[in-house]
């Protein structure tokens, strides 16, 4: 199950990664190997097994609809590289 170099470039673009031509070649090889390894699963005969959406028998724990206090704005804005009027300031839009 070999990936093409175009597919690798597309995946890199989705992850916003900038790869050198040498990295593109290397990852094409490595990702293909990983896919081959996982692809062994499709060789197993599953005709007698019903489709399974999840193997976990558990259910999502639920929370009552109650409001809890939030940390102060200053604390959260400390994570911002730049802020203005209580908001995170980010670079202007670049169309990709």
């Amino acid at each position, binding site marked *: 199950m070999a990936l093409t170099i175009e597919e690798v470039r597309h995946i890199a673009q989705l992850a916003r990664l900038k790869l050198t031509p040498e990295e593109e070649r290397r990852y094409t090889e490595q990702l293909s190997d990983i896919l081959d390894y996982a692809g062994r699963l499709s060789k197993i005969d599953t005709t007698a097994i019903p489709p399974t959406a999840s193997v*976990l028998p558990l259910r999502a724990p639920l929370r009552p609809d109650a409001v809890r206090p939030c940390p102060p704005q200053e604390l959260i804005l400390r994570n911002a590289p730049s802020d203005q009027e209580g908001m995170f300031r980010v670079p202007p839009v670049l169309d990709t």
Partner: protein
Amino acid sequence: MPEYEVVIGLETHIQLNTKSKIFCGCKADSWGDPPNTNICPVCTGLPGVLPVLNRSVVDKAVFLAAAMHAESISSISYFARKNYFYPDLPKGYQISQYDEPLARGGTLDLPMPDGSSRRVTITKLHIEEDAGKTVYQNGKRLIDFNRCGVPLVEMVTGPDLRSADEAAQYLIRLRQLLRWLGISEGDMEKGQLRCDANVSIRPIGVETLSTKTEIKNLNSIENVRTAIQAEVERQIREIDAGKQIGAWTLNWDEDTGILAKMRSKETEADYRYFREPDLLPIRLDDEWKEEILADLPELPLERRARFIEQYQLPLYDAEILTDERSLSEYFEQAVSAHGGEAKVVSNWLMNDVLRMIRESGLRAGDLQLRPEDLAGIIQLVEEKKITISTGKALLDRVEESGHSPLELVEEEGLSQVSDEETLRSMASEILSANPDQVKTYKGGKTTVIGWFVGQLMQKTRGKANPQMAKMILEELLSENGQKET
């Protein structure tokens, strides 16, 4: 030039009115709050946190699914990650549902103003979290995360709507339903109800769907109507000119009324949906489902039909009275307290009580004037104990004071004056005090009687029985005339 049929499907996002967010305890409604004050490590996606599902989100979404007559409400559904990068999405993915949503199928029958009906199908209904908000200010981009993690229901219709008016009508009925169920205010201007429209046209008679465009950023029902209409006209022009329709995403600019092409959309596969590993499946067992659905009320259009049938109301009345749930309940309580003709109660409600509701901004059920009070006032008028004008004034007096109508009538001496002797002596006084008008009347201009009745009403502070007042005055005036000749 061929005739075209318009094909529209709507994708709506409904903000549920829970107190807290979908996966954390932050306050959900940030309307009017300063930016970044209702956020925490969970909704801003800091490392090491885990989401915990708000039970009320499932309750409300299941309620809506049932009200939309969903074919299946899943006993097990799953969360998925929708991956994309955008500054207002701090985690780099949105927790949503994908291949195993909460509910599938469903319908809403839209009554159209011309009397026809349009059945709109719902393809799927799922729950997800909202993203933050980007504010553009003088070329700067500022991010407020307050809205991150606010619960949304996404509901997608089939390509069933056939005009811009039908699309608007769908949103009007959906908003009515959301308020009726008490799960969202559905205010488009506040972003509580959002809508993207998929629009295409095809020659009449063709069954296949043509290439569609998607219109985004529609933030009022009026904008939905205007933007769809503009897009339909554009598509007709393009096709008539022999051009092709591109599968564009269009942005509606409310200020300029212009649809502008947005950047080409990433294809669905690029969202790389996968099962959310941080959340277990939602298991909706029968017990929980029954508990939720036990509170499902009669729906607006069903109630409208019943009002016409059971109370013999005109469609016009039934439509207004079932516009809002509290008003429809108020009406039924007043009818049952009144015990007489429902149409009479409807008239009082639509003429006077609706005015009070509009002026006060209250819901019918929150008025001080209870349905029993309204029924009591109507009865007092029907028994001729008070005049209609006293009755109408009494509505406001009960609303202001919270006293019962009967108490007020007694305390303030508002009973209608039907005592003939009292009226006759008051009328005589008026005639002697106004010899000029008496002369005019005698001179043949009998319309001046209205003026005399007005005088008598004024003297009794509106409490005179108007028919009796007129009769007595006419009697006295003719006697008066006879004496002088």
